Each structure stands twice: as C-alpha cells, then as structure tokens.
C-alpha cells in the first residue's frame, strides 16, 4: 500500500517542475517542504497569500523566507587546515519556503551552451580539477529547455551570437531596459563585447494568467508582490490545480525508507514542524510511495543522503561542490542610474568571457593553465538603502554619503558568475558537532577556489572596469566573492561564497563507480529515487543553474513517467 505515486522533497524550481510533470502524467504526488508557505493558497483557487512585498527589513534582515540560522545553522571552512569549521551561520542560504530559491531569484534564466556539456572533450583536463563531460548533451536537453521556458514564462530575444541553437522563440519579448544598462551595454559593444537582453523569468506582458512586471525595483532577494515572476508559482499552481498534488509545508525530510535489501525506496520519513515546540519533539511521520524525488538543492540533498547513508557507494555524495566564483566590478556614475530602485535588478548580460578570445588564452598560458573560462556578466544595480547604510559605517559622514549614494543609486555593478571547476575535496558533508534545532547534523561546506578561478577573475576584472569607465563611471573597482587575500575576513559579503548558485554534489555519470546518479537522474544504489535539482550537475558553467535544473527535472520526471518529449530520450545524441 502506498499513499501516493511519488514523494517530492523540496518545492523549489526542481520539485515544482517534478510535481507539475508527474501530475500531468496522472501521478499522485506529495510535496514535502521544510519551510513555511508564504506563496500561495494550498486550496482552490490557489491564489496568492499576499505575503510578498517591497520590504527590505523582512526579506534581507529578518529571514522571512528562511532558513533561520538559529534553527538551521550551517558551517563553512575553506579546507581542513581551518579545523572543523571557520564560520557558523548563513552559508549559501537559499530560501527554505514553498517555492524555494525561485521565490527570491531575480529570474535570469539562460540556457547552457553545447560546450558546457562537454567541457573535457572541448577544453581538456586541468591539473587539480576533475573536469568531465556530462552523460547527456545539449541536444538531449533542448526540448526540455523549451518546455521550461514556456512553463515558467521567459522573456528574451535571440541576439546573443554565442547562444546555443534553439527550437523555438522565447515565449515573451524582453522587458524594459534598465537605465544603467543603456549606458553599459553600448560601452561593452564599443569595447568589442556582445551584450544582449537577459532571458528573464519575469513577465514583460501578461502571461499564463499572471500580470506583467511593474518594474518595482525589488526583484533579487524579494518575493514578487504581483506574481510577475513565474518560477515557481506557475508550476506549483498548475500541479495543485490537477487535483493530484498535495503540498505539506513545515515537513522536514529526515530519511528515505527502503526495502530490506536497501535497493528500493518505499517512502519518506519527515518531522512535522507544524507541531511544537513546547509539546516535545516534532512528531515523525511517514509517506509511503512508489518513487522518491529529491529536490532539496545541492546543499540539502547531499545532507539528507549522507545522514541517511543512501546512494553513497561511490563515496561521491557531497563531493565536487561547485559555486560561482563571483567577480564583482562596481562603478560610480556622476548621476543617478537608478539601479537599486527601478526595474528588475538585471536586464542585460554578456557571455564573451565564457567563449574567450586570444587575450584570455594568453592569460591562461601565462599562468601555466591550458585554458580559463569566466562566466556570464550581469549588468545590474546595487542593493537597497539599508544595505548601503551598513556599508558606510557609523559617523558624521553617514548622512552625506547616503544622499550622495555612490554605493547605491549612482552605482552600477557587473557580477560575473565565474565558472568553478569541480574538485573532490570541495564538498558538502555533515558537521561533526553542529546540530539543527531538531537534533539533526548540520551541513558543512568545505570550499576553496582552484587557481583557474583566480586567474580568470584577475584577467577579466580589469576588462569590466574599462567598460564601466567607458560608460561614464567616475571610478571602478573589482572585488570577489568569496573574498581573497589578507583582508578577506573583513569583507562585507562574508567569508563563504555569496553566490546562491550551488551545484554538483551528487553528479550524474555513466558509471556507478564515480557518480551518484545515472544519466536519467536515478540513484545508482536505489533506482526508484531520482534527483531533480542542481546537485546532479557535472560542471558549473558560467551560467545561472535554474533553467537547466528545471529542464533536467522535466526530463528526469518525464522519463520516469514514460512521457519523454519528442526528439529526446535516453540515448539520443549521447556522447
């Protein structure tokens, strides 16, 4: 007897996609979400709860989207020489809430390129890194990219000369250009780069029953108060509307129940956090199912696998953690560019530094590396006034600096999401001493950059500064996250990587000996468990992971349900 066909752990972009795909195939699913529900009513007509708002305190200072680090601490260290941990608190805290990371994202949704799936074949190995090819190709995934863009609602245009081929147009045209981008995009072109309007999961026109974006200026790190962002509310609402989906918030998965031989999952155990505290420990409950879908993200999925001793016969669970090594180049203009108050955080990007050129190749050779790759450069604004106020520090200068606003309204920022190479010692594991509020082992991140990331950043940072000065900036300066160098401990963004792009802790592969899941996302050790989040990534690329993880989740669950899209499937164009 089972309670449903599949239990899905996590309601973010991957879990929401799985719920949508499986319910459309006629499956009954239960979605367990450890966080609160601030997104939508869970009963028909599944309307918005109205909790999202333009509120800097609630979203950036008071953990409304979770997780609260007092309940769910995480630890960080750069390597073993730091001891058990260097830092405890917020470590890559993607939202823990119904909708997951999709709620707070500003929705830049680029596809990967063909080469990204074949990094070893096209670029070659690098000492000290575990560069590999994916077991699937871009062609395998392309139909699912198209489906993902349609379901979420992606606004974009086909003007990027480096983009991979696509089988159809974007569902919507781009939204309004941010003013700062109207300065920096032409400057980038003057310097030989190729900026284009960012593919964005925010409606530029009414779409799928949701309104167009109103350019409120509170996009990245905020939930959308008008539901113009499609990820993940569109997917969850459709799943709920099927009548085959139940979402249980405040349900912390703690284990996958299995058959006696351990090769077949039979359900999921979870703590019911809607009960307590004050009445003892939260009760443990169980949902029995034919399949289990893991979609907790590249931090929480390996944490669950490790605490449950599941899927780790290869000793690869948690390893090859990749983040984006961010190069942050900021420039202040002599007038306001309104990047922190109007528009959708980022409207233009360029990816020349992923493709590379002769100068980039020369920089690699000079550093003794066979190649380097940067990442997508986002042309965007700064943060809100509280974040700006905190940077200036106390004193008489404070009000003058706030009116001058060189670090907010006059600031324009390039964020390069630099490719991070896989390394087995960069990993998520269980902290030996730190516990969450319910007694479970906390997750620990061990991560330090490969020299590739440092060389790439050092080469590209000055190029970005030149673009900003060409656009009219009075000054430009570059830093990185995580910070590097003797002053790293004082960096305002903290020691752990600030990027919320985290991938690769349960990589997919052709062989059970060196991967965690197969090319269809199934655990080698327990094939009726599939992973539908970014932990299966084999490379980080220089692109945000969300659209790709949604496409992968759609592919994995369509294969599971026997409804693969035409032109794709296990084995098509496989390398």
């Amino acid at each position, binding site marked *: 007897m089972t309670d449903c066909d599949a239990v899905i752990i996590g309601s973010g972009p991957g879990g929401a996609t799985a719920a949508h795909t499986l319910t459309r195939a006629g499956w009954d699913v239960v979605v367990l979400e450890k966080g609160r529900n*601030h997104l939508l009513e869970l009963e028909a007509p599944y309307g918005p709860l109205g909790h999202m708002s333009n509120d800097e305190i609630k979203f950036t200072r008071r953990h409304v989207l979770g997780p609260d680090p007092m309940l769910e601490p995480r630890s960080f260290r750069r390597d073993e020489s730091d001891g058990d941990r260097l830092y405890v608190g917020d470590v890559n805290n993607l939202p823990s809430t119904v909708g997951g990371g999709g709620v707070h994202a500003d929705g830049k949704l680029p596809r990967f390129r063909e080469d990204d799936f074949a990094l070893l074949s096209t670029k070659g190995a690098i000492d000290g890194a575990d560069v590999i090819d994916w077991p699937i190709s871009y062609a395998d995934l392309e139909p699912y990219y198209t489906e993902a863009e349609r379901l979420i609602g992606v606004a974009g245009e086909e003007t990027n000369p480096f983009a991979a081929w696509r089988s159809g147009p974007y569902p919507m045209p781009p939204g309004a250009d941010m003013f700062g981008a109207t300065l920096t995009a032409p400057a980038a072109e003057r310097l030989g780069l190729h900026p284009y309007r960012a593919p964005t999961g925010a409606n530029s026109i009414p779409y799928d029953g949701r309104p167009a974006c*109103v350019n*409120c200026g*509170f996009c990245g790190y905020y939930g959308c108060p008008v539901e113009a962002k499609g990820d993940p509310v569109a997917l969850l609402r459709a799943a709920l509307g099927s009548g085959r989906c139940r979402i249980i918030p405040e349900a912390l998965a703690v284990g996958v129940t299995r058959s006696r031989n351990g090769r077949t999952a039979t359900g999921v155990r979870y703590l019911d956090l809607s009960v307590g505290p004050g009445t003892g420990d939260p009760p443990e409950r169980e949902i029995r199912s034919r399949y289990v879908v893991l979609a907790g993200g590249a931090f929480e999925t390996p944490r669950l696998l490790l605490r449950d001793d599941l899927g780790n016969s290869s000793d690869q669970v948690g390893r090859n953690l990749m983040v984006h090594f961010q190069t942050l180049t900021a420039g202040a203009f002599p007038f306001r560019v309104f990047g922190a108050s109007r528009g959708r955080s980022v409207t233009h990007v360029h990816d020349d530094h992923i493709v590379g050129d002769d100068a980039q190749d020369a920089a690699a050779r000079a550093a003794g590396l066979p190649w380097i790759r940067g990442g997508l450069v986002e042309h965007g604004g700064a943060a809100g006034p509280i974040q700006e106020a905190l940077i200036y520090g106390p004193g008489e200068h404070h009000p003058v600096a706030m009116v001058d606003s060189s670090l907010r309204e006059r600031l324009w920022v390039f964020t390069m999401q630099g490719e991070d190479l896989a390394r087995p010692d960069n990993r998520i594991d269980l902290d030996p001493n730190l516990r969450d509020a319910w007694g479970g082992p906390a997750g620990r991140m061990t991560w330090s950059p490969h020299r590739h990331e440092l060389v790439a950043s050092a080469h590209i940072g000055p190029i970005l500064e030149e673009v900003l000065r060409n656009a009219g900036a009075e000054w430009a300066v570059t830093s990185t996250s995580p910070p590097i160098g003797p002053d790293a401990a004082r960096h305002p963004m903290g020691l752990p990587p600030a990027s919320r792009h985290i991938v690769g802790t349960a990589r997919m592969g052709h062989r059970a000996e060196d991967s965690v899941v197969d090319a269809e996302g199934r655990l080698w050790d327990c094939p009726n468990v599939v992973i539908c989040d970014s932990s299966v990534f084999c490379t980080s690329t220089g692109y945000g992971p969300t659209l790709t993880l949604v496409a992968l989740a759609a592919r994995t669950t369509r294969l599971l349900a026997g409804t693969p899209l035409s032109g794709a499937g296990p084995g098509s164009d496989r390398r």
Partner: protein
Amino acid sequence: MGDPSRAEGSNNEGILDHAERRTLVALFDTLVPPGPVSDDGSPAVPGAGAAGGDRYVEALLGAFEFDPPRIWAGGPSSGRHGGEDGFSSFLELSGWEARAWRERITGWTEQYRTALAKLGVDFADLDPGERRARLSTLDPAFCELAFEHACESLYGDPVYGGNDDGRAWTAIDFRGDTAPAGWTDAEVTHPYGSNGPPW
C-alpha cells in the same frame, strides 16, 4: 495575517523605560547622525534616533507583546502606491520561528539594557566627543548590533517604528516600496526624459 493587537496580558509599559529610551535616541543619533541642511533647501536626513529609532527598538524587543508578533510586516502593498495597506497586518510566525525570535530578542534585550546602563543617564547631555569616548567603552559586538538596528530603523519601512513619515527616504530621494504601481517602462529606461542624463 492578523491584527497587530496587544497580546493578552502584555506589558503596556514597554520594554525600555523613559531614561533608557532617551539614551537610546542619543546613541542612534551618534551612530547615524542627522545630515546638514542642503543649500537648495532639500530636507535633511534625520538622525536615526530622532526619526524614531527608539520606537523601532522598542517594537522589536517588544514584538511578542503583540499577536501576531511584530517581526514580519504583511503585504503585498503598503497602500502608498496603490492597493490596500497590508503592511500593518503582521504575519504569523510558526512555533519554531517564534522560538528562534524569542531567543534572539532575549539576547538583544540584555545587550541593550547592559549597554544603555553603561552609557549612563547623562549620555544624551554629552557633546559628540564625549559620546564617542563613552561608546568606546562598550562591547564592540553591541556597537555593531546597535549600528545595524540604527540603519534598519532609519531606512526601513516606517511600519517597523522608525523612519518617521518616511523622512529618511524623502531625504535620500527614495520612494520606498512602489508596488503595485511600480514604475513605467519609460521611467525605468529614460528616467531623465528626452534630455538624457546630466553629464
């Protein structure tokens, strides 16, 4: 969401007494002081204390005097730019979230009481140099906390108790929340109109 009514049995006297609040205002005005009046007559940035910093801290430390606790303002809009005022109806916390916030606030309350007592009842009467000397005797961790709260109070939404009438937002030419009206495409792309930026 619920009404921000006082919880049954709550302490209507507040968390900090009058003397402590007077010291707190002076502390916040020292950390984040008022700005000079500009030549063009633009409103000056108020000091974080004078703009309601004491009310912000009082509301935070006394959050659980209300039901729901005044931790997270509601939504989706304040009513200032269309829609109805949803901000003043605070969101419910789960039992576990409430536990974390009670613990956090208990620690902060102790830190404030200790620090305000150390600064002394005459702190508000001191000149800036003397205030800075007293500040240097405090626990640096508290100074960091107080600065963070001063910034939040001055530049956060007025529903949390500070930023009187949005005066700080006005002074830095920030509209604050804008939804659901937002900005038109033209206001986003061409904020200076047809004249372009003031090069």
